[in-house]
């Protein structure tokens, strides 16, 4: 099994099967003058952990909607090019099949939850698929356990905290056993400790289950140490797509609305000043930074 971060030399893993393939995709929403996506091509391999970043309005949400078929099946507009999810063209595949391949978690979990109990919420899409009862029970159990929320099963989703709700929303997607988990700024309404706990869970899903993850986020310091790819978008196009360290070293990310993790920023200043300490590789976490400094001291 592949561990996230191993792709650090080249972003995506060579040889692995492509779960998502996008060819020359352009999309313009009905009634809008500008294209939200302009000639986007990309490939995501099984096990990849992709962080999507860029200014708000750059096309992240639109791209995610294309990857699970919401566009063009639900949102109207001009669509050209092609999106393949597990080899299936999103324009020709019924939503209930597609939703078992690529599941999308929204910013606001309230839009995804509605049942009387957490368990019922997670089971609902499976019941809709007409799966046998024992399969449903087993999958619900598996999904609750993966997110560490077994103890919430009988609670009403409405009495949960934002972070707990978001985990329930993810569990209900996971129970469909998708090949790809898509997340659209899932932590934006959470307090920092809840956000960290959620991101830790997502990282675990990639590490332990090898699940392919594509997540859009503004705050990167919690994600980058684990991501295999950082994809930066600008005005509907992909402008960087590589392992996070190369992207951080290569570009002026602030122009794309991206905050460098503070440790990376300190390392940059250290390198600018020059002297007895130099970071060959820009650190992505406090641990990496401290390790390098200790190496110099010893």
């Amino acid at each position: 099994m592949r561990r996230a971060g191993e792709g650090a030399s080249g972003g995506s893993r060579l040889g692995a099967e492509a779960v998502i393939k996008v060819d020359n995709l352009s999309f313009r929403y009905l009634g809008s003058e500008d294209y939200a996506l302009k000639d986007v091509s990309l490939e995501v391999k099984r096990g990849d952990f992709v962080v999507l970043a860029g200014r708000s309005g750059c096309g992240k949400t639109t791209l995610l909607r294309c990857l699970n078929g919401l566009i063009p099946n639900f949102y109207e507009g001009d669509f050209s090019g092609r999106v393949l999810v597990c080899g299936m063209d999103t324009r020709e595949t019924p939503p209930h099949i597609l939703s078992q391949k690529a599941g999308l978690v929204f910013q606001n979990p309230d839009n995804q939850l509605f049942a009387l109990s957490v368990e019922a919420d997670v089971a609902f899409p499976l019941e809709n698929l007409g799966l046998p009862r024992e399969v449903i029970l087993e999958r619900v159990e598996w999904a609750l356990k993966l997110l560490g929320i077994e103890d919430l099963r009988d609670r009403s989703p409405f009495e949960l905290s934002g972070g707990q709700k978001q985990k329930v929303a993810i569990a209900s997607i996971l129970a469909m056993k998708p090949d790809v988990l898509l997340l659209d700024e899932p932590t934006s309404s959470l307090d920092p400790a809840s956000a960290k706990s959620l991101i830790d869970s997502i990282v675990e899903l990639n590490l332990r289950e090898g699940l392919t993850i594509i997540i859009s986020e503004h705050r990167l310091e919690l994600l980058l140490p684990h991501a295999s790819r950082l994809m930066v978008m600008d005005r509907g196009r992909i402008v960087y797509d590589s392992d996070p360290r190369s992207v951080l070293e290569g570009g002026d990310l602030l122009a794309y609305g991206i905050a460098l993790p503070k440790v990376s920023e300190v390392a940059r200043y250290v390198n600018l000043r020059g002297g007895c300490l130099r970071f060959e590789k820009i650190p992505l976490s406090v641990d990496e930074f401290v390790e390098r400094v200790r190496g110099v001291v010893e």
Partner: protein
Amino acid sequence: MIAFESVEFVYPSGVKALDGVSLRIGDGEVVALMGENGAGKTTLLKHLNGLLKPTNGRVLVDGVDTRKATVAQLARTVGLVFQNAEDMFFSSSVWEEVAFALRNFGYGERVVERRVDWALKFMELEKYSDASPFMLSGGEKKRLALAVILAWSPKVIALDEPTTGQDQLQKEKLLQMIKLLREQGRTVIISTHDVEFAAQLKPRVILMRRGRIVADGEADEIFLDEELLGSCNLLPPQIVSLTKRLGFLGIEPSLKHPREVADEIIDRLEGLSRKA
């Protein structure tokens, strides 16, 4: 000057959202209310312009008891930008949305025009002047809500979670705007759990938990207390986590700028190598 005197607030559901809050905020202060979701930050902000009135205790805005004033009266002094900005739009165009309150306050059409144009430009929304507010993205709606308030220029500006869904460039812009408002002598009160943003702003920090104020001090002091932050579901800024781990170089934990931290590290390392 704003004063909360032993304020309690109980929602009709029975939830006590403020539990004995006493607080003074002077003119020109920049204050960040921080704490986990449900700590009472938004409830406190809604007391500033009288949207909510205390169940017990009282709130004074420039000496006026909010229970004895209407929201419309208080709004001239206190502009509040909601977290769910999209909930408050109702005009057919972005331009009209900003103009509405100004006309309501009785400004002449020429002043309205100048102020609306200025506010939209400042928030980078001028290209959407004729668009429907509902066509905007989440981040743009947020900026529109801010433009609405900035246009009528109240003395106290309260922002509920202003950085949610904003990218780094917009955050820097927001930071500049708050600094500008501070220079103009306005009072700015924000609720946020964006610790990195607050670390850059360096405001007076008021930590809340379960309807109470648990700490009130300068950012430089509160953000160094990991345990205190943790008890409010907050994490320290990364620069604090980093400097805390560099004690072996003789570096003190701090909220310094990354460039200063970099200089400090190199100075210490050079000192060590000279000794050796």
